[in-house]
């Protein structure tokens, strides 16, 4: 059920896209993309503001390296930042290169005399990194549908992407990688008992939706060979807020655009906000300088404590008997 429901949901979305792309063209090619984008932007802004409104009462970075203490002990500013530069560096490595996932190991208990083994495991790191980077490059490539003339660097990027010059239209590396990585991410959820157990319908939905988008995109590029100029007409129109819906855009294109619109709207409503959340995580984005810079808790309040006077009142006699100094005789 956890797999079937999201699968069905994506199939239904594809069906809607197919029908809609043929029928209600203005709705599907103009209104929904705008709506999706609007929800995306406003949703992310709302989320970030919502997070930011919860204060950070304590400075709780997770330290993953040597602290800064004595001058002759080398501190690790990247894994345990002691200044802003360190935090920025830590965040860059985390956001662009998935530093923490790079540490990943798989644990195995070998029997006989029992041995707990921690085997390095880069699969999750590699597949997520490849997936995210490919998606980013694909996204950037898509600018060519929105601007005229196409900037050289985008053309350069695409040429690089098609470095191997296979097939016509030239096979783009990112297209293969993104599908491969996504498939791996789906398969591991199905295959690995641990992952199967923790996965929710939403986890599969996000993956299926992305597969739908990349699948339809690839179909458009290599098989349907949808007219680029038509897509571009639509794109530039949308960007300049003077949308025109050109005749001749097919059903697959409708599906592709519809799924993208859904994805955009879905991001801020779901776990996919992690793209923004990673910047807000107090265990990663704080300087570990607690002992030399006081952190203020905005909602701090006074509490009842057991004062020394109360303590001495209770124990004065035994303290005196034990010849411990007291304040009051």
């Amino acid at each position, binding site marked *: 059920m956890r797999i079937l429901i999201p699968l069905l949901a994506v199939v239904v979305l594809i069906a809607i896209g197919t029908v809609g792309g043929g029928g209600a063209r203005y709705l599907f090619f103009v209104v929904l993309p705008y709506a999706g984008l609007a929800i995306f932007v406003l949703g992310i802004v709302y989320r970030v503001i919502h997070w930011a409104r919860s204060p950070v*009462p304590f400075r709780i970075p997770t*330290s*993953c390296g040597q602290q800064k203490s004595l001058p002759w002990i080398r501190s690790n500013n990247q894994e345990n930042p002691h200044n802003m530069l360190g935090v920025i560096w830590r965040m860059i490595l985390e956001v662009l290169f998935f530093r923490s996932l790079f*540490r990943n190991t798989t644990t195995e208990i070998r029997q006989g005399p*029992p041995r707990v083994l921690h085997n390095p495991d880069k699969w999750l790191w590699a597949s997520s990194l490849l997936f995210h980077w490919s998606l980013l490059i694909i996204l950037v490539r898509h600018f060519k549908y929105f601007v005229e003339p196409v900037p050289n660097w985008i053309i350069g990027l695409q040429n690089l992407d098609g470095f191997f010059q296979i097939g016509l239209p030239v096979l783009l590396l990112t297209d293969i990688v993104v599908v491969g990585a996504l498939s791996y991410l789906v398969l591991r959820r199905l295959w690995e008992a*641990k992952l199967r157990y923790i996965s929710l*319908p939403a*986890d599969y939905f996000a993956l299926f939706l992305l597969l739908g988008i990349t699948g339809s995109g690839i179909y458009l590029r290599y098989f349907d060979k949808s007219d680029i100029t038509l897509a571009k007409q639509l794109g530039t129109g949308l960007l300049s807020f003077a949308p025109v819906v050109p005749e001749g855009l097919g059903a697959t294109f409708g599906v592709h655009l519809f799924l993208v619109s859904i994805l955009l709207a879905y991001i801020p409503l779901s776990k996919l906000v992690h793209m923004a959340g990673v910047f807000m995580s107090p265990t990663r984005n704080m300087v570990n300088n607690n*002992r030399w810079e006081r952190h203020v808790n905005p909602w701090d309040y006074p509490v009842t404590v057991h004062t020394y006077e109360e303590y001495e009142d209770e124990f004065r006699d035994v303290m005196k008997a034990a010849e411990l100094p007291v304040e009051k005789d």
Partner: protein
Amino acid sequence: MSEKLKKPQELAQVEFKPAPQGWMDPTVEFRKGTWNYAAVPETLEYLDLPYPRKWQPTDDDWQLPDGWEQIILTGMRERLKKYRSFQVFMDCCVRCGACADKCHYFIGSGDPKNMPVLRAELLRSVYRNDFTTAGKILGSIAGGRKLTVGVLKEWFYYFYQCTECRRCSVFCPYGIDTAEITMMARELMNLVGLSIEWICTPLSNCFRTGNHLGIQPHGFKDSIEFAVDELEEITGIRVDAPINKKGAEILFIAPSADYFASPHYFTLLGYLALFHEIGLDYTWSSYASEGGNFGLFHSTEMIKRLNAKMYAEAKRLGVKWILGGECGHMWRVIHQYMNTLNGPADFLETPRSPITGTTFDHASSTKMVHITEFTADLIRNNKLNLDPSRNDHWRTTFHDSCNPARAMGLLEEPRYIIKSVCNNFFEMPENTIREQTFCCGSGAGLGTDENMEMRMRGGMPRANAVQFVHDEHDVNLLLCICAIDKATLSPLMEYWVPEVEVGGIHEMVGNALIMKGEKERDVDLRGQDLSGKTHADESPAGGSQEEVAANA
């Protein structure tokens, strides 16, 4: 140790059998050996905590107050607004599973709800149900669960199977710290009077007498004096150990187990020898006679209520700065919470070593220095006359305690000291030390006798790494800088690697330290014969290690 416990070989046959229908229907079985006794009502009453009552987790009826669901949900809303960490961690998990097999409890038990991600989901599912749009509309399809008694029981079982060690947070791509989520969950359960004895009894003791064990001022003085006598027997030198002395330069605060339990006690002897040898002008305090702070395992408010004593006492005694002993969770509190909760400590000065002249600028605001920072500086400046061969009967390894490692980054200081005072030091495998260190399996208030099976399971990854260095290098002593570790690693070793004992760093310092005017040392601080420099297996002081684990 409980007799019913399986043999190590059997316990190591960890089975992983996740229920095929998933985890959404709450199920929990309070199996003997895997949970902790409920807090006794008197302790809650003493601390003015809500809904004290007599109950046990195995009861069918937990006597929850009327409207308990609302109490918890309101508490949750409040905390989502007060802690960005909580809000972000509730929203951001992608269930990638990177953290799943990083938790010692999962590795040792195979219980799928001990995967950090799932532990968090137990709470997150309620968050989704009641605080997100998707959850409100789609319910269980969106991964939402209604807060029911079953869910609450699950919370109690699994949030008291997390030692707040933060190992999962090292591996999470968003730094999601399940320890933080556990802290929130425990606060929520406190609101309806659910906590455990092993947390609330030390809390009320500490509130009243100044230390977890409830030792009154004269008892405290006796313990310290007993140690002074013992040290004199070993070294021939009578040291001074002032208590509540006004005008001393430094206030020294150690975890109370150091002056009560074994093998902590030998570390205490080490401190005393060291302070005497360098002529430190310091004082102990009977009012602030506890470095540890079980508030960390209970609630932020309780951290603050107990921790307040440190600065208050420093002020009353008129010291310049505070030195802190070997303790793990104590140092998380001091490093990450104290200054915020009870600072600023303007009346103190930036700590400066009176012996070397080094100023500890990194502690210029809290005014509190870790003893390994202090001693490492002494050694570096050649202020100590050391004979490491007096530790030659030990082949040592070092266990990074979770909190100094992952909530501070105190990694090199202890190693520098060990290497200066011991000739034989061997590191455990890379994935089990430093920021990736494995918990003793009994921290965060879970070190009880009734929880013994879970402790041995949770401690297995740590013990197994010790086994490795024992097999490879004949290691026979596991060093650590944490009072909970010293109490709980001992039975853990006894169970998994009985050839290995547990000790503190300042015990090693005390052994190696050549004191002016000392007599020829024929025994080490444990009273073990040094003449053959072979390792004899006797435990001279304090209770047996089991007793300590049970009572400390």
